């Protein structure tokens, strides 16, 4: 029965289904009553969708004159997106699912730093502190998984915990640690040699000398790990074999 219902829905013209969100919105507006929003615009689908769909994501996306730069011995995972002014310096590693988008300002990942899984690094057009709004990650910095960095400066030898959020203009000074899940509000400065945590981030304690010595060791350990990932990738992918096989099976001359 459900299948018949679905089939009959499928037979309806697409124009009807496109007007659906509009109807849903007007119902929503009627609910809130005091500020009725105008009906949603009618969606017109692109006729050449195939041109941009089904093609996969490029790793490096140059925007205008700016092309991302990756040092030869840096490791950038295959499903990372680097767009615009992004520089990944030697020994740095960017792990799977991260997005580094330097479309408005510059992003740099310094020597032996690492940006872990599914991080988003972005740079705003301007920062509330009045300093340059570029995102600068310096040497021996570890940025944990799922972190969000926007126009912040991280000085050498820091650890940013997993799931932490750094907003515009925040500054993490050298030898400091941000605990996992901390949220740094815009323009906040985390002084040198301190441990901060929480939402919004608060001072927890000062770090001991031994702990600060551990910070670069962690970055180096992750750098060593990325060394074992690098040789797994051939200079060229073997995807052309698949394409040639397909072309042969369809009788297209190569």
């Amino acid at each position, binding site marked *: 029965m459900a299948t018949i219902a*679905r089939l009959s*829905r*499928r037979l309806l013209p*697409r124009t009807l*289904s*496109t007007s*659906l*969100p509009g109807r*849903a*919105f007007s119902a*929503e507006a009627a609910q*809130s009553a005091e*500020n009725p*929003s105008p009906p*949603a*615009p009618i*969606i*017109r*689908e*692109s*006729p050449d*969708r195939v*041109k*941009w*769909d*089904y*093609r*996969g*994501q*490029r790793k490096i*996306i*140059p*925007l*205008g004159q700016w*092309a991302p*730069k990756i040092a030869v011995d840096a490791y950038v995972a295959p*499903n990372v*997106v680097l*767009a615009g002014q992004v520089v990944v*310096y030697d020994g740095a590693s960017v792990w799977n699912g991260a*997005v580094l*988008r330097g*479309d*408005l300002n510059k992003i*740099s990942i*310094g*020597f032996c730093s690492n940006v872990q899984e*599914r991080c*988003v690094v*972005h740079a705003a057009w301007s920062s509330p502190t009045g300093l340059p709004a570029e995102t600068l990650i310096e040497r021996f910095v570890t940025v944990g998984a*799922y972190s*969000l960095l*926007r126009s912040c400066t991280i000085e050498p030898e820091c650890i940013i915990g997993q799931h932490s*959020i750094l907003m515009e203009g925040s500054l993490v000074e050298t030898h400091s640690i941000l605990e996992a899940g901390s*949220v740094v509000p815009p323009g906040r400065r985390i002084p040198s040699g301190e441990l901060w945590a929480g*939402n919004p981030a608060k001072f927890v304690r000062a770090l001991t000398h031994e702990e600060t010595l551990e910070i670069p060791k962690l970055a180096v350990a992750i750098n060593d790990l990325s060394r074992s990932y690098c040789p797994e990738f051939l200079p060229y992918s*073997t995807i052309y*074999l*698949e*394409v040639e096989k397909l072309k042969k099976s369809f009788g297209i001359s190569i």
Partner: protein
Amino acid sequence: MGTLGRAFYAVGFWIRETGQALDRLGSRLQGSYVFQEQLSRHRTLMNLFDKAPVVDKNAFVAPSASLTGEVYVGPSSSIWYGCVLRGDVNSVSIGSGTNIQDNSLVHVAKSNLAGKVLPTLIGDNVTVGHSAVLHGCTVEDEAFVGMGATLLDGVVVEKHAMVAAGALVRPDTRIPSGEVWGGNPAKFLRKLKDDEIAFISQSAANYASLAQVHAAENAKDFDKVELEKVLRKKSATQDGEYDLNLGVGGEAPPELNTNAPKAS
């Protein structure tokens, strides 16, 4: 193509064949760890039987995003890299001029405990920050959802309201117009100032124009990309800042550093 050309082609073929044979030999030596790459099966727009996403021709959807099921994206909206919009059990609709930034997740609920049907509705000129999670909620026009915020089932964000970064909004919360909510669980923080309200629509407009640049770049075909790569390589110059960051060489000699302002 003359005889010489044919000969070159044949030699090229032998070299490639040898290369492939070497590749197979290398793979054999690597034993069971060998990796054979397959064509990527990722689909940006995926239908579930009759539930197909509908995207306006002026909208930007990043190739690495995935839109599944009943998802409607209005004109000049943008769905950025790594986003997942999943309209499988209900519908997701996004108005015009809205941006859903990188690695965000928009999902729907069939119904909640009270039995209410929960499609996700996102209005016009909304900004949804990086890595936000929107689950079965309503975001009205010109609202702002900060980075890493989580909106659970039945949440309503009213017009001109703002959810601060890293906030977790509990189910069935209503965030009134012109207020900022933040924290875990989200609480009222303060009222928005007029210039901040103006900033929200401004930011959506900025993103809409930025999306056009990204859309143009991502729509380029293979040949164009390769051509641009060659052109870029030709005009490449030594970056003085690069050595500086490595800590080698100190400062670049002044005769190399032509575009920097002269030190007085």
